[in-house]
């Protein structure tokens, strides 16, 4: 179980995330919605450790992880895909994923064997690439992939971490209509396994409605609504938040 308690970060005087308390149960998919600038990405950064909280706590299975650095949190089972694509640009797609597989293997401090001899890591990386239908791009350098493929690679890296908690930050943003189902199917498949916690930031309301067990609304850094999709989507506060913010819902 992942919990945040009065989680807050201030940039100067401005609280980008302001006292957010929320708990996410295994086996559920929670969508986090809100207009641009609401603090969704910043909330993710606080949970996965890219930014230090000003106050409040993050707990994972009862353990306070607020002070832990990002790599520790990842190895404790927090997995994160980034909104802005964030790859290893001059390495191949396969190598991008293989590096993520390698983290848990305990092989990363092996200096004396050839990386290519660890077939099991490469094979697993190929499976994750196949899952996002990028098998034929395995040897392509990440930076030269089209935008949609880079987004899919981003998801493949997250899959390769095999986390307990999946955090997707606008995974389908900027994707062509053909690619969107690939990613949504993956999220649906993870959800079906029943033991994973999924946090999803997504603007496409039909997607949110069909996938989510629960919707949390952030507005100006505050949690303003939290409930079942049908209740939240039609609530006044969401309409107000979206109409008051950017009209990109």
């Amino acid at each position, binding site marked *: 179980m992942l919990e945040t308690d009065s989680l807050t970060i201030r940039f100067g005087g401005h609280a980008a995330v302001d006292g957010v308390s929320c708990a996410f149960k295994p086996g559920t998919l929670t969508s986090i919605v809100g207009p641009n600038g609401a603090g969704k990405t910043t909330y993710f950064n606080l949970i996965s450790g890219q930014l230090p909280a000003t106050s409040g706590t993050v707990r994972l299975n009862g353990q306070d992880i607020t002070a832990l650095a990002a*790599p520790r949190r990842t190895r404790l089972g927090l997995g994160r895909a980034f909104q802005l694509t964030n790859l290893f640009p001059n390495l191949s797609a396969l190598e991008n994923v293989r*590096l993520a597989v390698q983290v848990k293997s305990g092989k990363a401090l092996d200096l004396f064997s050839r990386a290519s001899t660890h077939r099991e890591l490469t094979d697993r990386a190929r499976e994750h690439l196949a899952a996002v239908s990028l098998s034929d791009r395995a040897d392509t350098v990440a930076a030269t992939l089209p935008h949609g493929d880079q987004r899919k690679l981003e998801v493949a890296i997250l899959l390769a971490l095999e986390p307990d908690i999946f955090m997707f930050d606008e995974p389908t943003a900027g994707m062509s209509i053909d690619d969107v189902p690939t990613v949504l199917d993956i999220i649906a498949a993870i959800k079906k396994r029943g033991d994973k916690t999924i946090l999803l930031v997504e603007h496409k309301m039909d997607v949110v409605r069909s996938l989510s067990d629960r919707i949390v609304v952030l507005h100006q850094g505050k949690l303003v609504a939290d409930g079942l999709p049908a209740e939240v989507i039609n609530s006044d506060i969401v309409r107000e938040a979206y109409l008051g913010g950017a009209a990109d819902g």
Partner: protein
Amino acid sequence: MLKSLLSDDLPKSRWLALLLVAILIGLAVAPFLFPGAKSLNVAARICVFIVLAASFDLLLGYTGIVSFAHTMFFGIGAYGVAIALTRMGPGWDAVAVGVGAGLVLAIALAVLIGLFSLRLRTIFFAMITLAVASAFAILASQLSDLTGGEDGLNYRLPVALRPSFKLFEGFNGRLLDYYIVFFVSLALLLGMLRIVNSPFGSVLMAIRENPFRAEAIGYRTVVYRTLASCIAAAAAALAGALLALWSAQASPDTTLSFDIMVDILLMVVIGGMGTMYGAVVGAVLLVLAQNYLQALLGDRWLLWLGLAFILCVYFFPTGIVGRLRRR
């Protein structure tokens, strides 16, 4: 077999393969192909600088660490052997003590610098290494009782490495010394080639490409950067020890000076960053140029050399190896 020896890192270009084979054979038979003290000296320096440039590339080209302290580790290795041979007399025990002490000091310093400052931004880290290296060079010239100050140390090599020693007819101590330098350098190069192609090496490249993402997927970059610094420092110290064992002298000019730092930077950039073969090609070119271009081009040779570098970097931004691999 060859694939395993080269750790799967094949030249991937026919011309590069030819060039590397030529360099290997040239250095292997240098004493017979190019007789004479000067050419043997050049060949030995090429071997040493291949190791030094390759270890620097492990930092700069593979891990993305900009350090100006690399000659400091080279100097530590050289002075370790030089001081031990001066103090303990010309025996192999002194060589062993010198190499061991140099390695320990180099690695300890690399750990300290790494843990204290590898979290900093690249430019600040570079500044700190510059400061530490300058301080160390001053220290070395001040401690003249130990280091011989500005003049450095001249000492006698173990008997087996002297010209007067005959292993068998036609094979004297200098040749033995040369082949020690050659084979140890070759082993160190192949060792580093293995390290950059290991699982650990793949993390170094991930850190070079995107340290933020490397952290996000679970690698503590400071640990890997510090380890890479230690490996590079140890290899540089061994290169220094080889030079000391070859030249029978160690001075600030030949081991610690900032000129050497610039030389190895140029070797790596001209040869091609992020490939061990680039360091090999760069080291060969630069050491040859330094030793023979003056005779060929006269007093203005440095000017021509500078011009050649600018053109080289302009036309081959990925270095000679990058250029050869592209076709």
